[in-house]
């Protein structure tokens, strides 16, 4: 029997309470605060084998302990519990500053999609591997010539019997070199009446002849994403999600899962939440011309501005629960969240560098770098979110058109 992601049923408050306590104790005992190297703050930053191996083991351990996928159906490898249980486990992770979940594309996009429109066979085949991090997933949407204009994707998929033959290239593929599978947007019909109608959505194996990944070095100096080349690569036709020509709709659906609207959440988090208070601690310990940075009125004012912004963003998130406060533009805050948070994260990291005086000139690896260069690297990495997942400019367009009702052209 196929489930729609969330098992309904009565939650026994006592059981939930016990579960939450156990989870709390488990994370208290198992989170390793210092593995001896810098852990990535987001799934997009996984840049070394050391980081990858550590996080894969970590996700697997969390899953085996029952704190990931707790609300996904048990016949596919989940815990079969109510979502409230998973939420309690995720809360415990947050409380104990647990490392991120590695398999982001699998957990947030592929899993919910399979349980929504996939077959039972798809679910049986893939869900467990997603949860255990045995099967890493990546996302093949962007192409060298088509990024923001995703609907114009040109990678060709041609049906041949039980297979599709792929030719073309994807780029900026996060964890592309580690992935066993890709969710792929490809062009099945170049002659469709409009560009969107010619697209189809596939679950594509990566470890097959004709698929080649080439790591791309990021602005931080590390690796983490790839260009992926497809040359007469043959993938099974049963990996088609939805019908041929429905690729755009399926891709848009995945965006809803990412926002947690449908499909139930696997749990955990794939980005560490930004702690704005940490910048205050930083300002407290740094000096500027012999006096604490904290005494500099200009820096104080800037800090307060950031604190106000951080608080306002937190409250905007909380506002979702108060329907009367969102009556006039019901989707306004939901659609603005990415823009507001990612731009804030970029700017506060940038500010943190300016607090450091000469030491702002150090980078990761130098023994004198403030907090091991965390802030500088954080600033550079912050662009992953202002560019990836739809750039800030595109977010502005979306909000202007879908929230403010301004015309596309």
């Amino acid at each position, binding site marked *: 029997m196929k489930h729609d992601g969330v098992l309904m049923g009565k939650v026994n408050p006592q059981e939930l309470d016990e579960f939450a306590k156990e989870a709390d104790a488990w994370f208290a005992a198992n989170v390793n605060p210092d593995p001896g190297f810098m852990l990535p703050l987001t799934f997009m930053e996984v840049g070394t084998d050391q980081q990858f191996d550590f996080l894969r083991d970590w996700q697997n351990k969390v899953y085996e302990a029952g704190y990931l996928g707790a609300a996904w159906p048990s016949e596919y490898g989940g815990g079969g519990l109510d979502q409230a249980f998973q939420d309690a486990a995720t809360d415990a992770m947050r409380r104990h500053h647990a490392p991120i979940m590695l398999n982001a594309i699998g957990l947030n996009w592929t899993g919910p999609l399979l349980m929504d429109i996939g077959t039972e066979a798809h679910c049986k085949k893939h869900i467990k591997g997603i949860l255990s991090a045995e099967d890493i997933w990546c996302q093949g949407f962007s192409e060298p010539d088509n990024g923001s204009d995703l609907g114009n994707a040109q990678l060709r998929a041609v049906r041949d019997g039980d297979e599709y033959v792929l030719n073309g290239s994807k780029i900026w593929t996060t964890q592309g070199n580690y992935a066993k599978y890709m969710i792929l947007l490809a062009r099945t019909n170049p002659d469709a009446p409009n560009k969107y109608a010619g697209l189809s959505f596939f679950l594509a194996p990566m470890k097959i002849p004709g698929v080649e990944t080439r790591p791309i070095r990021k602005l931080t100096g590390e690796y983490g994403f790839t260009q992926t080349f497809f040359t007469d690569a043959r993938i099974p036709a049963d990996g088609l999600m939805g019908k041929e020509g429905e690729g755009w709709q399926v891709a848009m659906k995945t965006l809803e899962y990412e926002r947690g609207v449908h499909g139930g959440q696997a749990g955990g988090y794939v980005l560490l939440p930004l702690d704005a208070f940490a910048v205050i601690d930083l300002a407290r310990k740094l000096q500027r011309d012999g006096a604490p940075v904290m005494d500099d009125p200009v820096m104080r004012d800037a*800090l307060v501005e950031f604190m106000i912004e951080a608080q*306002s963003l937190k*409250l*905007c998130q909380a506002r979702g629960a108060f329907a009367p406060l969102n009556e006039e533009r019901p989707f306004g805050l939901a659609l603005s969240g990415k823009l507001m948070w990612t731009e804030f994260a970029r700017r506060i990291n940038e500010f943190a560098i300016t607090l450091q005086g000469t030491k702002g000139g150090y980078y990761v690896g130098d023994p004198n770098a403030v907090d091991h260069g965390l802030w500088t690297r954080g600033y550079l990495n912050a662009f992953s979110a202002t560019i990836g997942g739809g750039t800030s400019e595109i977010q502005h367009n979306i*909000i202007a058109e879908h929230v403010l009702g*301004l015309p*596309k052209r």
Partner: protein
Amino acid sequence: MDNLGQLGFSEAQGDLMEVAKRFCREQSPMQKVRALMEDDLGHDPDVWDEMAALGWLSIAIPEAYEGAGLGVAEIVPIMEQMGRYFLAGPFFSTSLAAQAILVGGTEAQKQDYLPKIAGGSVATLALSEQSGNWDLTAITARASHTDQGLALSGEKFFVRDAAAANWIIASVLVDDKPALVLIAKDDLPKDALRREVIIDETKRSFALTLDGITVPKSALLDMAQAEAALAHIHLCANLLSTAEICGGTQNVIDYTLDYLRTRKQFGRTIGSYQALKHPSVDAYTGYERARSLLYSAAHSFNEQGTGEIATRMAKAQADKAYAYAADRAIQFHGGFGFTYECDAQLYRRSAIWHASQYGDAAYHRKKLADLIL
């Protein structure tokens, strides 16, 4: 300090918001706003009576004094809609005066005045002085004991709605200590009030000469509570002003969007240009952030420490958001934006007014630095 305020929204707030939205929209269409700007009194007394009849003046007054026994948080959604539709009248002044008596008055004064205010009697505050200080304890006006009572001296400015008020509560020094005194309308000499020319023409404000005014001893509020009352008024005023600002910001954004959706240039609707689209989004997100802070400030208002932080944060963000949205509104209307006829100027002027009263963004950030850093 890691509790900077939390969001909450009461059923009463929700009900009042609904009623106020309808009321303000219907009672304050733009032609009427414009007409009242030219009117000497500046508001419609019938509308004021209706507001009193709706019980709006009694909201934050305890039941013991014939009020509804709710809090300042419940006034916020009303003020927000008033700011949105520029509904003119002494609601802000009277609400603040009630708070001044509630926190700073003697029991006898509370029993005497609060029921009257709850019933719609207009009152206001005279706090600002020539110095232009936002610090309400920086007082130079005086009250001296005489056989007739308290003889007042000095000057007050930005006394809102004074011509309509039955009482004015003025801050003065008594024996060099801050105090508040009630001045009845009948005790005002003929030329004591001068209407000020202020940037926001939907509001009325007056300079008040205290020289020559004598009030009975019973007009002195509880001196032991004077500083607490001034601190409370400062925060209340900022909270209510933030509510007005949020309403104004919402409307100036909507007003501008209407234009961006209809005006055409180069064969395109101007709203399709990203140079106008993207700043509009920034204005919108700035507004939403201010509004989230506003309702957190309202909800947390009575919490020691947190209430102050949340209120100052809200005013700081709201000031910034209103100024930006209204500034861009003028620009985005082109030549029409430069006219008196275009409503953009009303909002920009209103934003300047709100920044000038009880502290602007930078002022509150400075206070916050000492509270949270």
